[in-house]
């Protein structure tokens, strides 16, 4: 891949990708750019706002109509709903694991098949999260199985 950096007078930074087709390499570049640009705005208990990159997020869950975002070190809240999180960061590995949880597939250490078609995910933090019967087939599809 040829990389060119041009310095010119522009109101804001601009990235243009030129390719005959969106192949694996270009999709990787796009994903990298998006992960850098699409930061997730969250706040902690003391109402301090932070911008997280999607790859920092382990999983998100709803509790009493509030959406909590868990990283390896801390827990935050976000204004986005689980559906929005899934649609916005789905391409970066966010996956709906149940009615009340979205998990980052890149932060899963291992998966285990469970009775009645469910899947148990062990996260990088050691926590376990159950992918419900409804969402397990979608996970299999996502993993190319």
């Amino acid at each position, binding site marked *: 891949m040829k990389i060119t950096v041009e310095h010119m007078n522009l109101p804001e930074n601009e990235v243009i990708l030129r390719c005959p087709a969106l192949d*694996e390499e270009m999709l*990787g570049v796009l*994903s990298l750019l998006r992960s850098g640009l699409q930061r997730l705005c969250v706040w902690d208990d003391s109402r301090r706002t932070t911008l997280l990159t999607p790859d920092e997020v382990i999983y998100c869950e709803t509790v009493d109509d509030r959406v909590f975002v868990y990283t390896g070190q801390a827990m935050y809240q976000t204004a986005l709903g689980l559906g929005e999180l899934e649609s916005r960061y789905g391409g*970066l*590995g966010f996956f709906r694991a149940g009615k009340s949880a979205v998990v980052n*597939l*890149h932060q*899963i250490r*291992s*998966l*285990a*098949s*469970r*009775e*009645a078609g*469910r*899947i148990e995910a062990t996260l990088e933090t050691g926590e376990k999260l159950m992918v419900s*019967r409804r969402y397990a087939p979608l996970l*299999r599809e*996502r*993993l*190319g*199985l």
Partner: protein
Amino acid sequence: MEYFNRFYLWGVNTKYRMGLYFSAAVFFKGLVNALLGSRTVEILTLLEMLLACFAFACLETALFPAGQNMLSQGKRIAVWAILANAVFVGCAWGLHWFPGLPLWGGLLLVLFLECALGAMWYALWLKERLDTAALNQGLRRFQKRA
């Protein structure tokens, strides 16, 4: 309607389990009868077997409701195995399902029962293990690709 739907789903689940045990019971009854020189099976015995299988299927459904991880519940598995022996060995002995069968033949049937019960759990364990391996392979591929 909700209650009916739940009852209906319970019925479907129980019926499937009952059918599985009943076919095994009829197979062994037929085999033993054939080996003892008889080519018929009494309807009353078949009905008794059907009822015994239904009772055991009900107990099994109560012990392992749909959606529960059967392999992770050691105590329930032990209760299930004891109940299976009590129902099938008890009925076979008490209701004379295999008349004329020598003692060694009866012991052999009990041994088959134990092997069948073990095989059921082994099949579940094996299925889970292979599925888990495939899931993790898919996960690694996905994580590597991104």
